[in-house]
């Protein structure tokens, strides 16, 4: 085949690792690859352009790019990983600055790509296994690396995104063709439609012409519009040739592998699978049977489109770091332990919950903790918030903090946001949950009462959305905002005018904000719980009655809610579900759902109910 392995030669274009790059030289900062050390690896008749970042003494992470890309697709991710790891990127043969094989046909087989990988691995990390991360065709290749015999012992872990193994894909199709149940047929047709470009790429010459002509010119704009990929040095000028050469990746491998998939394509290293849920080209169902091929599989899902290295670099850096570190340390206690139903989605994410010292807020913090999220529990009650954080760590949160802040205090919220930004990172999920109760007719409700309830219930949400939502939007990597409204937001009543008004405002605020942030990948949900057994009843204010009477009514209300006994945990589950599904308005309890339906279809009946005066 070819002579390769270890015959790298530094062409004097870049620095050789070890020369002046000790551990003391510090991490490479900045997102780009400008500071990367470059070297050339000669293998199988091609010259591969290899870039290195970070301290070579650290574990090596090799990033493999996809189609039609070059190693620059990783610039943000590589920059983020460089402070912890020895990051290596290379241009796949025929892409970027690496040379193309001659002839092109037959030069892009997975066997040859494996040779390239081994040559790079041997050059940058002789004698020590490397961690591989692949996106798109980089991942397709890396599945080959992770499943063939000759790389055994060279790969410590593999993180795959948006690129299935062609062998697994072949078996996936065969299985569905062999017993085409309606569901399986639908899955086949769905993926078949998503693979339209694969058929196009199999036509001769035309793809090359298109890429070198109009398509290559318009591609950056298409990426920006369809995939929301920000600019910033990507795609590079080499795009037309990358794409034209890369067409041979498909032509050389797809038909052969799908027709005769290998039966022994079992991964010999731990695999982390990151699945973007909005991928235009790959169905999530492709990975349904993956545990069969990769026994130590860790699943992650990400609400994003195909080009996650460009659109969600921070999340990738965090997951890759966590996975690689766990494998390096080999400490089973540090393995990813979160057990909740959405651990794949929220693992390692930063979640801030206000009103987290009790009730729905606390239950929500716990539910996110169970899914492996890092928790910031915010409440006026410092002790309660600290307790929530404490318990959150017990059930799966890798980190959790309690913060004593009054959400109605704008300056304090601003200060909190600054602190969170510098110490914990950007919030991925914000839950504006803090709220107080106020009962009493409109005429009996004083101005102070109004101010108090609006300050917490409405202004608290506004401040939260402003200070944290702004930072979330500025980061440009998506996120989610949950606002706790109430069933009272759409059911009028003569006893809760102020409370209902505040919650109706929160509901509308959420809907408007949802429209505004939709383009930036940030979802906004309003949760409308209904009667839930929480402490809100025993702290609620009853306007226009004596202190004794207020106490009595609080006790009565608490007992009533206790008899209803709808647990806040169920609201928390609904909250997580709402984030995962990006639901706009979520009525939770049956009465809330009933009221929601009535408000839409029989509003007059709801108005009639609103006139009923409840027994004292």
């Amino acid at each position: 085949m070819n002579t390769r392995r270890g015959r790298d030669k530094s062409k004097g274009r870049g620095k050789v690792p070890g020369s002046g790059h000790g551990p003391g030289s510090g991490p490479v900062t900045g997102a780009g690859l400008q500071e990367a050390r470059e070297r050339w690896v000669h293998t199988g008749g091609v010259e591969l352009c290899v870039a290195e970042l970070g301290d070579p003494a650290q574990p090596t992470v090799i990033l493999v790019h996809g189609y039609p890309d070059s190693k620059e697709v990783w610039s943000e991710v590589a920059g983020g990983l460089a402070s912890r790891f020895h990051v290596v990127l290379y241009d796949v043969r025929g892409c970027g600055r690496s040379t193309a094989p001659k002839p092109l046909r037959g030069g892009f087989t997975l066997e040859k790509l494996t040779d390239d990988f081994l040559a790079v691995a041997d050059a940058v990390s002789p004698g020590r296994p490397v961690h591989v991360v692949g996106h798109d065709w980089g991942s397709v290749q890396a599945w080959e690396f992770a499943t063939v015999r000759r790389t055994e012992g060279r790969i410590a872990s593999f993180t795959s995104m948006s690129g299935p193994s062609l062998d697994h894909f072949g078996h996936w199709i065969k299985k569905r063709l062999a017993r085409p149940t309606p569901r399986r047929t639908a899955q086949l047709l769905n993926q078949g439609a998503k693979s339209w470009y694969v058929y196009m790429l199999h036509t001769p010459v035309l793809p090359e012409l298109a890429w070198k002509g109009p398509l290559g010119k318009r591609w950056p704009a298409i990426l920006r519009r369809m995939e929301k990929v920000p600019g910033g040095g990507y795609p590079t000028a080499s795009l037309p040739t990358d794409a034209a050469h890369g067409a041979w990746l498909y032509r050389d491998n797809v038909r052969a592998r799908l027709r005769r998939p290998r039966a022994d394509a079992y991964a010999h290293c731990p695999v982390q699978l990151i699945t973007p849920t909005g991928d235009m080209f790959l169905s999530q169902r492709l990975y349904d049977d993956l545990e069969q091929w990769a026994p130590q599989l860790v699943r992650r899902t990400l609400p994003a489109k195909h080009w996650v290295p460009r659109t969600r670099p921070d999340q990738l850096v965090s997951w890759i770091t966590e996975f690689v570190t766990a494998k390096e340390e080999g400490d089973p206690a540090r393995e990813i332990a979160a057990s909740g139903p959405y651990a794949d989605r929220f693992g390692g994410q930063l979640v801030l919950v206000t009103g987290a010292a009790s009730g729905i807020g606390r239950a929500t913090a716990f539910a996110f903790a169970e899914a492996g999220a890092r928790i910031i529990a915010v409440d006026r009650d410092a002790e309660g918030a600290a307790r929530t954080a404490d318990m959150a760590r017990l059930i799966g949160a890798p980190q959790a903090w309690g913060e004593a802040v009054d959400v109605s205090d704008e300056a304090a919220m601003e200060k909190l946001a600054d602190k969170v930004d510098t110490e914990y990172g950007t919030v991925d999920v914000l839950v504006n949950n803090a709220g107080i109760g106020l009962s009493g007719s409109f005429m009996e409700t004083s101005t102070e009462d109004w101010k108090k309830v609006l300050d917490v219930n409405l202004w608290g949400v506004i401040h939260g959305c402003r200070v944290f939502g702004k930072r979330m939007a500025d980061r440009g990597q998506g996120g989610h905002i949950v606002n706790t409204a109430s069933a009272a937001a759409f059911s009028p009543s003569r006893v809760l005018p102020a409370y209902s008004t505040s919650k109706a405002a929160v509901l509308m605020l959420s809907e408007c904000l949802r429209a505004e942030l939709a383009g930036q990948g940030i979802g906004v949900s309003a949760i409308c719980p209904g009667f839930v057994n929480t402490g809100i009843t025993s702290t609620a204010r009853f306007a226009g009655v004596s202190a004794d009477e207020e106490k009595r009514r609080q006790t009565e209300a608490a007992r009533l809610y206790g008899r209803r006994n709808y647990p806040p945990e169920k609201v928390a589950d609904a909250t997580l579900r709402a984030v995962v599904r990006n639901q706009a308005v979520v009525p939770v309890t049956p009465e809330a759902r009933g009221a929601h339906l009535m408000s839409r279809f029989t509003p007059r009946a709801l108005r009639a109910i609103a006139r009923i005066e409840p027994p004292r």
Partner: protein
Amino acid sequence: MASVTSATSAGAGEITAELAGFREVQRLAYACAEAVAGQLKPGVTERAAARMQREWLRERGVRDWFHLPFAWFGDRTAFVNFRIPLQFFPTNRELEPGMAFILDMAPVYKGFTADIGYSGCLGLNPVHDRLLADLEAHRELILREVRERRSLREIYEDVDRLMVRQGYANRHRAYPFGVIAHKIDRVRERRWSPTLFGFGTQSLKGLASDALHGHRDGWSPLWSPYTFSDHPPQPGLWAVEPHLGFRGTGAKFEEILVVTDSKDPQESAFWLDDDLPHVRRWQEEKAA
């Protein structure tokens, strides 16, 4: 019960033969729980654990029950998804490493009844450890408020509030009538002691007669969150069982609280025995 209450109010710390009898059976039951807990290993089912308790006590002379032994493993310790009382009965759920378990039994020995609950876990379970540690505050709270002669319903609500503050769910609400405690008493020894749905008929008879008398006098042998418990503690022996739940893990203790009609607060109520596994555990933690 009159003999117990008058005797204890007569002299400080004086333990009548009757109280000694109750204490003996409570110790026996806790010894059984510790012995069985020591034998639990991965793969043991709830049914097997319940049978082990039954056989251990039967060998030592227990012939009648307030209720037959229960065993709950894993998320069943927190009564997750319990809808009907039949779900309390032991199942074929197998114990796994790291799982929490609860053993709950109420033997009658020489005519004296005990009702105990023992929480443990197989190997490491930090959540369970925390739950068990946090139960101490409940033991103190209940005794303090019973001595203050608060209404049982109020005490129930205070326990509830403390649980919520701690971040836990109230799981004794799942028990029949949502009770945190119930009265227990002496039981006449018969040659034949049948059970009904796991409860000894003799004990049920005693409970029913208490309920009848209580109904006439405005009290109830069941300590619940409802209006029928809105009365000060009734003298007698109460098996108190606060049960905490936290996301699929539960923990409880259950032991006898003696309530007397003494005017002296110290003697008006006290725990029958302070030398019990969970109390010793708290003391050891404090010492450490």
